[in-house]
């Protein structure tokens, strides 16, 4: 049995408290009126690099914000006024978007782990049963993390922020495109869908965990068989709901834009971060003296998955990018123009961190067995995929008013602390080895 050490407790609580301060600072420093926003912009004009983007002609700017209500409803009053209000909304959105990015990122890790776990169960994989309890521990964060994301969505629906502009009835009124989508994109249906997804995933997690623990002391393999059937069913449910979740929770922040492989793209990000976290957790637990039966053969397989899914992510990212870049249709290409103009560092940085570096570091077979290489590559991948989520959400939420400062760092620390605490806490609730699993022996003997 794993025992939650004091060090982990203190570390995670410290992260949570520091993170809370960061988040609070973010909300405190966000402007509450247009005048305050103007002041912030005026002050930052000098030192700040990307604030110089304000010298852009307003026309070019407004092509990116065509959906905002100011642009449509107050057209006659000129762009100057609408521009200020727009910047105000972006600045006011920043702490919310910072929290949302971090909340979604850590939730996504646990959801990806759940999917990976279900794949192992449904495939009746022989190598992984020794890792099941670690994966179950990580999915312990699924329900709390998912509830936090849903609460943020609910607060958006109650107009505490402007993350989802389609939730504003006035915007929809003046926007033909969003109006046409309102049969799907409306607040009650949106929230109901969110609850439905999370309920489905959590139910699978609950029953699978129950069967997994029941199998430990059982004389037959009936629990294993039940888990197998349940996992296969869950995967079918998951791939549909995951895709819809990515449209709802991320793509709809930019309600004019759409991409048909967005669900896969988010999934690739999700599963590679999840496998990375599993690998890092195993290395950490082994360093504490647990999981003595897990050896470098298992880590080698995880590292292969890290490598493979990094390439898979790059493939999907490029498939999405190239078609839009080549076709150059205005309504599609704005998505990448925003990112290429205002988000150069995170945009190209994430390509390097999510594809080029993992590819070069993990391509060597022997390197995949070295703990420090896996941890190094893992940290790069995790930061890279945080940047990926950042790139998905921030440009539509805060536009060129982004930066990575105290609100963002605070949010990451808060959710990292929460994640670490909940995950390690749920690890203590069951033996770290699924001894009753019929494939456990095979996993012990597994040689790459």
């Amino acid at each position: 049995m794993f025992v939650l050490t004091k060090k982990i407790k203190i570390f995670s609580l410290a992260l949570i408290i520091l993170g809370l301060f960061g988040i609070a600072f973010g909300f405190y420093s966000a402007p509450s009126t247009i005048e305050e926003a103007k002041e912030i912009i005026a002050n930052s004009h000098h030192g700040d690099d990307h604030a110089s983007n304000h010298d852009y002609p307003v026309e070019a700017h407004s092509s990116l914000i065509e959906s905002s209500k100011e642009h449509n409803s107050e057209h006659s009053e000129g762009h100057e006024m609408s521009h200020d209000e727009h910047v105000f909304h972006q600045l006011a959105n920043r702490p919310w978007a910072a929290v949302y990015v971090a909340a979604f990122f850590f939730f996504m890790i646990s959801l990806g782990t759940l999917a990976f776990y279900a794949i192992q169960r449904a495939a009746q994989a022989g190598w992984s049963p020794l890792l099941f309890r670690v994966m179950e521990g990580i999915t312990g964060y699924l329900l709390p993390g998912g509830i936090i994301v849903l609460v943020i969505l609910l607060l958006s629906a109650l107009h505490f922020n402007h993350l989802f502009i389609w939730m504003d009835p006035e915007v929809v009124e003046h926007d033909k495109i969003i109006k046409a989508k309102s049969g799907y994109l409306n607040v009650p249906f949106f929230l109901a869908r969110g609850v439905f997804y999370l309920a489905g995933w959590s139910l699978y997690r609950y029953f699978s965990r129950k069967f997994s623990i029941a199998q430990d002391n059982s004389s037959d393999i009936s629990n294993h068989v039940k888990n197998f059937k349940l996992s296969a069913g869950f995967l079918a449910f998951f791939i549909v709901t995951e895709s819809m979740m990515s449209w709802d929770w991320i793509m709809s922040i930019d309600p004019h834009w759409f991409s048909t492989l967005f669900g896969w793209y988010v999934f690739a990000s999700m599963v590679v971060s999840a496998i990375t976290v599993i690998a890092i957790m195993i290395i950490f637990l082994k360093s504490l003296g647990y999981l003595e039966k897990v050896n470098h053969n298992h880590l080698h397989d995880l590292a292969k998955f890290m490598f493979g899914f990094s390439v898979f992510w790059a493939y999907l990212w490029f498939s999405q990018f190239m078609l839009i870049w080549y076709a150059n249709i205005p309504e599609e290409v704005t998505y990448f123009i925003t990112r290429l103009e205002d988000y150069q560092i995170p945009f190209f940085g994430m390509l390097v961190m999510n594809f080029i570096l993992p590819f070069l570091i993990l391509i060597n077979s022997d390197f995949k067995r070295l703990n420090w290489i896996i941890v190094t590559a893992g940290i790069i991948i995790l930061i890279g995929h945080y940047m990926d989520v950042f790139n998905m959400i921030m440009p539509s939420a805060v536009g060129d008013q982004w930066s990575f400062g105290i609100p963002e760092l605070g949010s990451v620390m808060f959710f990292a602390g929460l994640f670490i605490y909940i995950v390690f806490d749920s690890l203590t609730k069951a033996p770290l080895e699924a001894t009753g699993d019929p494939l456990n022996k095979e996993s012990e003997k597994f040689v790459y």
Partner: protein
Amino acid sequence: MANKFLHAIYDDDDKLLDAVKFLKKEGVYIEDVFTPFPVHGLDKALGLEPTRISIAGFIYGCIGFAFAIFMMNYIMIVDWPQNIGGKPSFSFIENMPAFVPIMFELTVFFSAHLMVITFYLRSRLWPFKEAENPIPETTDDKFLVQIPVSDNEKELKSKVKKTDIFKIDIVENKDE
């Protein structure tokens, strides 16, 4: 060179693997093993050096990647710039996304084909080459361990008999 061989024939890959491990432990020199399919873990049991084909594959991939860049630059930018879909080809970097699929394909193409050719050369295989395996059953369902015999025939036989054997043959090499 020894021209007398002991052929230990097995009918299962697990039996073969156990036997090879046992014989290695007994200090028997195994010259070669013939199997109908690659047996997982056999190379480690025989103590063979790890393969270097993956390093060669990486280098071939780099060559393919570089070749693709050179080729696309020459064809589309230098030699005959074309305006495709409103994207005039006057600059490589601006048109790079369109060339990525070609770079990818040529990397895979070079890597795969040159690796196969390297493997054939290294294994001394070419078209119409006569088979080297001592008995044709090793292409069907039998596994053969070839052990050179000098004057220790009896000792070898008794050791090999301790394994889960299907058949033992003593063969004189007629070529030499």
